[in-house]
């Protein structure tokens, strides 16, 4: 109570927080310091000095304190901006922006050509422990005898391609890490043709932006061209030295060690080189809110 109605008549006005270091300097300079800071105060009395950490101490009236507090409160306005996330109407749009920004930064600031780590055979997880991950059915029942890959879009030689034509390209075998968005990862052995070799075979316009893939199980994906041209990106037809089994995407899947798991489309049916992505054709999971870029 006594603090609320003291006898003291010392009045010191607002001080600018930015000038805190001035106050630290010394007590004897507090008078000139105050006069420098005063806009409205006529009779500035000596301030009590500084606290243990050198912070300025003032004796002020209630009205002044209120004004000082209000001024300082305004500087926290950016926190309110974050509060926009609490408004249901804005929330999803803001989160979409945030994810979009992260995707943009991912593509912009990292070496898209950087090679993923490769591993020795002893580090490869046994085939039996390589998980089968699928979104609908583990085996969509592809007729492996009649299967062809349909090639469309910005290519010089569209049409149907047999697995043998892909297998005739130089074979790459690599031990790389498969990282799932869920949080697990597994080092596997993958064999296949370099995607860039196949894109050359079909005469793809590699200045185009995307490769879209649709799968026998209805899954679909789209990949940036730079990743498709990455030397470790494979059209994969082998795992652990054997033809892909049905659960892992027979007869052909994407294998990109620089991308997260859900981008590694299995049971490939059609690929299309394009410059425009339909909004609801960016990828099965991406269209539900996962990162499109998905770069590791």
């Amino acid at each position, binding site marked *: 109570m006594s603090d609320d109605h003291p006898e003291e008549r010392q009045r010191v006005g607002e001080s600018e927080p930015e000038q805190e270091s001035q106050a630290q300097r010394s007590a004897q300079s507090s008078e000139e310091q105050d006069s420098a800071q005063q806009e409205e105060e006529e009779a500035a009395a000596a301030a009590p000095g500084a606290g243990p950490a050198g912070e300025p101490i003032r004796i002020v*009236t209630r009205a002044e304190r209120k004004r000082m507090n209000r001024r300082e409160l305004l500087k926290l306005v950016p926190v309110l901006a974050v509060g926009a996330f609490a408004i249901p109407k804005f929330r999803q749009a803001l989160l979409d922006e945030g994810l979009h920004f992260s995707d943009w930064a991912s593509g912009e600031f990292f070496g898209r050509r950087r090679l993923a780590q490769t591993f020795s055979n002893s580090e490869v997880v046994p085939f039996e422990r390589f998980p089968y991950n699928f979104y609908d059915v583990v085996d969509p029942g592809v007729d492996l005898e009649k299967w062809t890959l349909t090639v469309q879009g910005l290519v010089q030689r569209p049409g149907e391609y047999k697995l043998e034509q892909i297998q005739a390209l130089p074979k790459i075998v690599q031990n790389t890490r498969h990282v799932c968005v869920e949080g697990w990862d597994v080092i596997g052995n993958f064999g296949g043709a370099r995607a860039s070799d196949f894109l050359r075979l079909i005469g793809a316009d590699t200045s185009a932006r995307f490769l879209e893939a649709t799968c026998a199980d209805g899954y679909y994906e789209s990949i940036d061209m730079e990743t498709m041209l990455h030397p470790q990106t494979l059209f994969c037809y082998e795992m652990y030295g054997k033809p892909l089994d049905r659960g892992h995407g027979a007869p052909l899947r994407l294998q990109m060690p620089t991308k997260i798991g859900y981008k590694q489309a299995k049971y490939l049916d059609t690929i299309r080189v394009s410059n425009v992505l339909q909004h609801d054709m960016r990828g099965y999971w991406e269209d539900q809110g996962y990162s499109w870029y998905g770069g590791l």
Partner: protein
Amino acid sequence: MATNVAIKPAETTAAITVSYEHPWIVRLAHWLNAVALVVMIGSGLRIFRAFPSFGPKTPQQDLVDIPRQLTIGGWLGGALQWHFTFMWIFVGSGLMYVIYQLATGHWRQVLFTPSDIKGVWPMARHYFLFGPKPAVDAAYNPLQKLAYTSTIFFGVASTLTGMVLYKPVQFWWLAWLMGGFHFARIWHFAAMCGFVAFIPGHLVMVALHGWNNFYSMVTGWKRDPEYLG
């Protein structure tokens, strides 16, 4: 009544002692980071829920079942959106604070150093076992320094481990320093546990030290600073 009338005008001239304890950059960083930290933990737990294990996928052995109610995002994809949005605010506000502290030299007030070790126990005994209050002649006591320095450590640790989890191909060397990709995920979780340990202690201390102390982190000005009384 006459006395009331006399007091009325005095209210505008009544003297209140205030000290400017927290510069606006520190306060802004604190509150942005506080919001971001809650979101990062909540969404992080939702992400962890998708695979609550540090072992292999096959066979999968779940460690815990984190209650849905403690998480943010609703599903894995939603949680990732929160995580990948607020990571910028979390890291940005953290950097803002650290750079400010370094630039102004204020870090010396708050950095826990070996000479503070001996002061931790007396302070903890005072707070938790009703021991005598040790004399404190610095801005922060040794226990505070330990707590605040730890949060910076947790922040740096969660950021670096998060970078490895987000971009393991790009930051393979960082993963290697941490003992590999698997360990990055374990350290990331451990750093979160550090924050979870800090927050209740911090909130209890804030509650114990009252409104004026809390309000100084809002406006910077602390009314009736205790070191004058």
